[in-house]
């Protein structure tokens, strides 16, 4: 059984902070199919359309019949753990700091035999669940997990290397006063976060629900933060930047309106200031510190979460400028992901459909409750994925964008 994770001690300030190293990065282009699946949290392998053989490792043509029709499809992730070994030596900089490391061979029910990282609760000869996870380099690896969940299984150091579990970590929620921000804070506390910093851009405004939340748990701390003010962001980073292990950017500026029905670009500019430049200011202020602490013990800095919208992928013309700001934020997040990947800090983008909050008052249901959005964020972090789609509308639009993006464009514009 996995030993439960112990709450990390206060850092010894005279010891050098261990810098981040990465597991091996290179993958073939075919193998990046696994990375895509891992990033989205699904278990897929190539399946030959002609002979049905499940392919592993990924390849250009079927290993059995040489057919080129090897499409990525969900496959049965169960298998038998036929052999394991525990590495006690490695010349790789990443693994030698994390030894011992258990690996093994799994004979999949779907056919292939694969080499995987093996969870400490898996018994040799037993049935295991394979899961695709992103490692610290952002590439897919196979983890063999116990057939059924075991107590504290997410605390296993090997698995924790591939996830971004909030347990015992400190979280900055950039707009803690919004409905979503408050829900995220609550969910983080429930997930065992050590501290949640709640950003407040309007200290002059009394929000009773916020005051009640803040009084409810000593792990909550209100911090002044206005993402449109570079100085405010810098000051906060100078003060708590070394403590933020998960940053959840909940700051959002949503106003209705297309492009032609307004005579100015003020609301558009306000949206860009918060949703785009705010993200960039946060990245410049908090990114370097998080990279520096990306391998700092069991509560290392692990994740950056952006709450975008499904409309980052397809504009909602009724909210033209807001959609554009979300699309721009998505683009920025991809650059941020590339820049944080070198340290192993993960960027997780969340794409909700409409959320049940005040600026969505006129949006008909179904709407996602802020608590549902927050739960999805925590689960995404615990699973270690990069993209999270929340709610039926987001899921449906995502599927339909793949099928016919022009149809989506026409329909959203009606």
């Amino acid at each position, binding site marked *: 059984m996995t030993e439960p994770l112990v709450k990390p001690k206060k850092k010894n300030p005279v010891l050098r902070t261990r810098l981040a190293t990465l597991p091996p990065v290179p993958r073939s282009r075919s193998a990046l199919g696994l990375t895509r699946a891992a990033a989205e949290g699904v278990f897929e392998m190539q399946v030959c359309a002609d002979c049905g053989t499940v392919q592993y490792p990924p390849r250009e043509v079927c290993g059995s019949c040489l057919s080129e029709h090897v499409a990525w499809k969900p496959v049965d992730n169960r298998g038998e753990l036929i052999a394991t070994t525990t590495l006690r030596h490695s010349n790789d900089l990443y693994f030698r700091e994390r030894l011992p490391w258990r690996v093994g061979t799994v004979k999949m029910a779907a056919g292939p035999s694969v080499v995987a990282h093996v969870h400490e609760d898996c018994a040799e000869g037993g049935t295991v669940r394979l899961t695709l996870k992103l490692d610290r380099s952002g590439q897919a690896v196979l983890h063999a997990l116990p057939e059924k969940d075991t107590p504290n299984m997410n605390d296993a150091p090997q698995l924790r290397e591939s996830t971004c579990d909030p347990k015992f970590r400190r979280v900055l929620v950039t707009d803690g006063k919004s409905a979503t921000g408050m829900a995220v804070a609550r969910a983080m506390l429930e997930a065992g976060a050590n501290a949640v910093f709640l950003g407040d851009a309007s*200290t*002059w*405004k*009394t929000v009773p629900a916020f005051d009640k939340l803040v009084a409810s748990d000593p792990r909550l701390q209100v911090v002044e933060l*206005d993402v*449109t*003010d*570079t*100085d*405010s962001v810098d000051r906060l980073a100078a003060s708590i930047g070394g403590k933020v292990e998960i940053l959840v950017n909940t700051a959002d500026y949503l106003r209705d309106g297309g492009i032609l029905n307004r005579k*100015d670009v*003020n*609301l558009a500019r*306000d949206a860009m200031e918060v949703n785009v430049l705010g993200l960039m200011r946060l990245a410049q202020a908090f990114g370097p510190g998080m990279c520096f602490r990306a391998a700092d013990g069991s509560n290392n800095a692990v994740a950056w979460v952006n709450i975008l919208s499904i409309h980052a992928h397809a504009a909602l013309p009724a909210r033209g400028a807001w959609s554009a700001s979300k699309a721009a934020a998505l683009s920025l997040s991809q650059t941020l992901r590339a820049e944080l990947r070198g340290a192993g800090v993960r960027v997780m983008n969340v794409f909700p459909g409409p959320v049940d909050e005040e600026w969505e008052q006129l949006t008909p249901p179904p709407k996602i409750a802020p608590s549902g959005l927050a739960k999805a964020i925590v689960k995404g972090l615990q699973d270690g994925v990069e993209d999270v789609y929340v709610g039926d509308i987001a899921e449906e639009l995502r599927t339909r964008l793949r099928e016919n993006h022009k149809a989506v464009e026409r329909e959203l514009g009606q």
Partner: protein
Amino acid sequence: MSNPVLTQFMAELLSGRVKLVDLTQTLTPEFPIIQLPPEFGQAWPFRIEEISRYDERGPAWYWNNFSMSEHTGTHFDAPIHWISGKDQPDNAVDSIPVENFIASACVIDVSAECAENPDFLLTVEYVKAWEQKHGRIPERAWVLMRTDWSKRAMPREYLNMAEDGAHSPGPDAEVVPWLIQERNVHGFGTESVGTDAGQAHHLNPPYPCHYFMHGNNRYGLQCLTNLDLLPPQGAVIFAAPLKIRNGSGSPLRVLALTPTV
């Protein structure tokens, strides 16, 4: 060709018998701005981004870009700011005659009343009583309302928001037309975020200071500070807004020339 008055003025200034007092708040990103209901257009707060600071972005020089609304920080309200003043002649900051940027000032100290009552409204009776003590308000003088609001904690106590909106002092709906008709004042100035009281939308007309002052081509100054350093009468105010084409107002440096004895 020299003018003896100007020569003497500079001599008084240099000798310290005339003192300059800065009535301006420092522009910072944190400085509160007026809060309208969120569905209305909003004024930009002061924001600043460094261009370079003796670094790779500019090795020998330091400078910044900044942005803000015309009504951010210590600022001047031109008549065109309000609908009542929209058809007045020379009603924008670029067309106001420059002579109007220098005027004497009367400072009415209501700080004790405001400490008791954040919704204090200045009345005709109060001004008349003030005149009994300090003399009649001269023609074309600024009337500045000293509330000590500038000494309040920013931003919470300064904006003083409650569930029913902001609570800060200002003039009532009768004193403003009286000041214009009976005293022909130049404009009205306050320490709080606007020239009108925090609850002035409930007065008749709403926002009487804006409505009447600008409707009569008079001016406004707000977010002033250091009014406690001025005498009730005798100070001269230099308040020249930026020359923005058709601008409705402007942040500015407000200086007071005040006798020391």
